[in-house]
């Protein structure tokens, strides 16, 4: 019987091994992109919600974003502390880079030294997205080429960073609650439109469902009342089809800077306004009302709205790091010294070979000579490399005139002599951090600090953020002259100013705090390439390199219709903007960004 008992017990253990003690229930909800759709190539929104249950949790959340090739991937690992008291919930809204659709995004929750949750997210790629803020999932027609994917979202689903709107062709607002749209999301939305985003606001007789205060600076018109419009002939004439019924519309009062692109008699139906490089369109009707849904011409209307249009991106992009010098050239004296050292070595070896004997001591001398010169060359070359260590860091702030928000992008290139790891504390105003291929980095979000740990001898990082702009500017063309008006709300002057217009450049005097106006004749400009050859564009090598990078990327057309400039370029002390740009520890050598390049796209009056 004892034998039977032990055999039975062993069999039981083998068949059903003891399992680990049950963990407390951990509820993790993950959202990437817009309803799971992303347009690969840029930043995408990521939402993580963790409900650890009654026991709480103390650990961390890790998100891995991959890019590059299989053999040489670039990984940015994000880590957030996860400390939730019993009954609490962890909520994270951020943006992560999603460059290559072949790679998944890995999310892990770690607690007590173990991985308690792990999941690989594989977002669905789309050629373009139409994001609809609406309580009703329907009514928007996917049209245009390439065909976008229509996704329905709520205010909380919108990204907190403007970069995470990558791939969104149009944001359609049917319902909007200002209470549910927090300040970060609102600012991100404004900044996205200012940088070229397109927004459609569909009002109609229920226009009160849209919180106007949240969109106040963007609105092209104010809906004041509602009325029943007889079947509108202008809509049908332009987009085809026949309206079978009267259409309930909101009475829109266009605001200054807006234009009525379609009206039925005195009633504006479609009002538009440019905002920065972006565009805001307001419909006086509701696309969910029955008369509109029964109108066959609505397909053409949607197609015209959703057609992909070439969009200029920001001027400063990650490729800027490629033109930045990351180490100085080897001085000719050093190269000469190395050559002389080699000649000396070959001569000594030749001398020894001529006196060769079969004795062990001769072989020892030969070997010692090779070892001694190897050590000498290695020590010398390592010292040369150490002196070449550097950190190149440039920052640029792009502001769309009239938008009130600016985006700040910093690019950092570090060249370390011995490779290995390095650690930086990045400024808090730049929460979007990623390693640029082929480098990798670990980004750790701590209370009050963002720590970046990188490895390898050469690393490049992108750091970005959005904040209210203290600069604004307008331009007006009058009889062969440009009237430029710039507002500097910072406490310090804006220096080394350049005005770039239609591929030409002109220097301007320093801009003191307050309002400044200039009237500039159009005949006193120099070509950009001529200006680029001038040495005094920046005070340092890096400033000059950044300007050389920016110049060719400024759109040359800059007509009023294109709304692409003119541009005001200048250097500003980040402290004057209330921004502290400093790295910890300080750069090994090189130029910390004591000045930020301001790229202000002037708004046409």
């Amino acid at each position, binding site marked *: 019987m004892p034998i039977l008992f032990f055999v039975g017990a062993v069999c039981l253990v083998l068949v059903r091994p003891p399992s680990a003690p049950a963990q407390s229930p951990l509820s993790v909800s993950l959202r990437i992109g817009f309803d799971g759709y992303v347009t690969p190539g840029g930043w995408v929104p990521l939402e993580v919600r963790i409900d650890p249950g009654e026991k709480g949790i103390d650990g961390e959340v890790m998100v891995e974003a991959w890019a590059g090739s299989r*053999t040489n991937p670039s990984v940015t690992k994000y880590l957030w502390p996860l400390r939730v008291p019993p009954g609490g919930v962890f909520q994270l809204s951020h943006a992560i880079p999603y460059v290559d659709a072949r790679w998944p995004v890995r999310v892990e929750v770690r607690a007590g030294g173990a991985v308690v949750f792990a999941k690989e997210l594989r977002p669905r790629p789309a050629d373009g997205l139409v994001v609809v803020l609406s309580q009703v999932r329907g009514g928007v027609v996917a049209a245009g080429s390439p065909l976008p994917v229509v996704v329905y979202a709520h205010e909380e689903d919108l990204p907190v960073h403007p970069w995470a709107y990558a791939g969104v062709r149009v944001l359609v607002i049917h319902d909007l609650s200002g209470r549910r749209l927090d300040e970060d999301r609102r600012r991100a939305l404004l900044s996205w439109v200012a940088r070229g985003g397109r927004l459609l606001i569909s009002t109609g007789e229920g226009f009160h469902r849209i919180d106007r205060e949240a969109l106040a600076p963007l609105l092209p018109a104010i809906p004041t009342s509602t009325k029943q419009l007889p079947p509108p002939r202008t809509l049908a004439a332009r987009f085809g089809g026949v309206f079978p019924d009267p259409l309930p519309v909101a009475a829109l009062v266009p605001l200054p800077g807006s234009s009525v692109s379609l009206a039925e008699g005195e009633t504006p139906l479609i009002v538009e306004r440019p905002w920065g490089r972006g565009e805001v369109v307001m419909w006086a009707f509701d696309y969910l009302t029955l008369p509109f849904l029964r109108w066959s011409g609505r397909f053409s209307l949607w197609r015209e709205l959703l057609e992909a249009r070439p969009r200029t991106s920001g001027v400063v992009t990650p490729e800027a790091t490629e033109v930045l*010098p*990351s*180490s*100085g*050239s*080897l001085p000719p004296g050093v*190269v000469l010294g*190395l*050559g002389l050292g*080699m*000649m000396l*070595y*070959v001569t000594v*070896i*030749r001398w020894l*070979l*001529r*006196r*060769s004997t079969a004795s062990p001591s001769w072989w020892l001398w*030969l*070997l010692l000579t*090779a*070892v001694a*010169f*190897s*050590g*000498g*060359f*290695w*020590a*010398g*070359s*390592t010292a*040369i*490399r150490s002196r*070449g260590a550097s950190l190149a860091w440039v920052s640029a702030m792009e502001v769309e005139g009239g938008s009130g928000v600016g985006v700040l992008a910093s690019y950092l*290139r570090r*060249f370390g*002599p*011995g*490779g290995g790891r390095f650690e930086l504390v990045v400024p808090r105003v730049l929460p979007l951090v990623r390693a640029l291929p*082929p480098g990798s980095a670990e980004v750790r979000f701590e209370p009050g600090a963002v720590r970046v740990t990188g490895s*390898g*001898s*050469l690393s490049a990082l992108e750091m970005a953020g959005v904040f209210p702009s203290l600069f604004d500017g307008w331009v007006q063309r009058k009889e062969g002259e440009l009237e430029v008006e710039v507002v500097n709300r910072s406490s310090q002057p804006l220096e080394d100013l350049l005005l770039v217009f239609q591929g030409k450049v002109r220097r301007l005097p320093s801009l003191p705090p307050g309002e400044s106006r200039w009237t500039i004749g159009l005949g006193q400009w120099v070509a950009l390439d001529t200006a680029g050859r001038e040495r005094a564009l920046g005070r340092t090598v890096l400033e000059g390199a950044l300007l050389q990078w920016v110049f060719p990327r400024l759109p040359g057309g800059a007509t009023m219709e294109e709304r692409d400039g003119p541009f005001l370029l200048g250097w500003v002390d980040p402290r004057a903007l209330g921004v502290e740009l400093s790295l910890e520890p300080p750069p090994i050598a090189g130029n910390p960004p004591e000045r930020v390049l301001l790229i202000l796209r002037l708004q046409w009056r």
Partner: protein
Amino acid sequence: MRSPKSVGLITFALALLAATALLLVPQELEGGSRLPIGSAYILLAIQMAVLTYLISASACGEIAIEGEKSIWDLAGTRFPSRTIVYGKITSAVLSCAMLLALAAPFQALVLGVTGASPVPFLLGWLLTLGTTCAAAATAIWGMTLSESEGVRSLVHWAWLGTLFMLSALLPEPWRLLNPFQALWEAFEGGREWAWTLGSYAVLSVLFLEWAGWRLQRGRGSHAHLRGG
């Protein structure tokens, strides 16, 4: 070793490698991971080609070093054929090791400036020794084919061309028989270079055994001729 020709050859090889290393020092120390790997790889590849030529040419007698006896001179001695053949290859491999040690300062320079890992360098040395051994073994075998200098040179150059150039045209995975390809694999962190090294070792033993057998046969015919 102290013969003027030998000293001249070693000096020339070292000067060539020194100039290569100096040219490979990057003007700017940036350049990411590609440049350090490129510099180190180029230096080792050139070194491999130079040393392989020198050692195999010496082994087959194309570069005649004063005082060094040819394989047929040694065939007249009382040493067994295999001892002669393996003695020749040992001499070739030791000469290669000495030249590698003498060229070490140039690699130290490139290593220090570029910050590249020393591991591929060490693997490069091993592959150079293996390639040199295979080339020298073939050269020794070529010497046993005929005492004619023309045949020796033909075998020597045909083999160098096959080893370094024709093998590069082979399809995967046979292309790994190319020493440059194996060196690249070593730099890329792969382990396939071990197959290359193993193939060269097998090839060396086969050619040396064949050369020993031919030498033994040749000795018989020479003795017959001498006896006649």
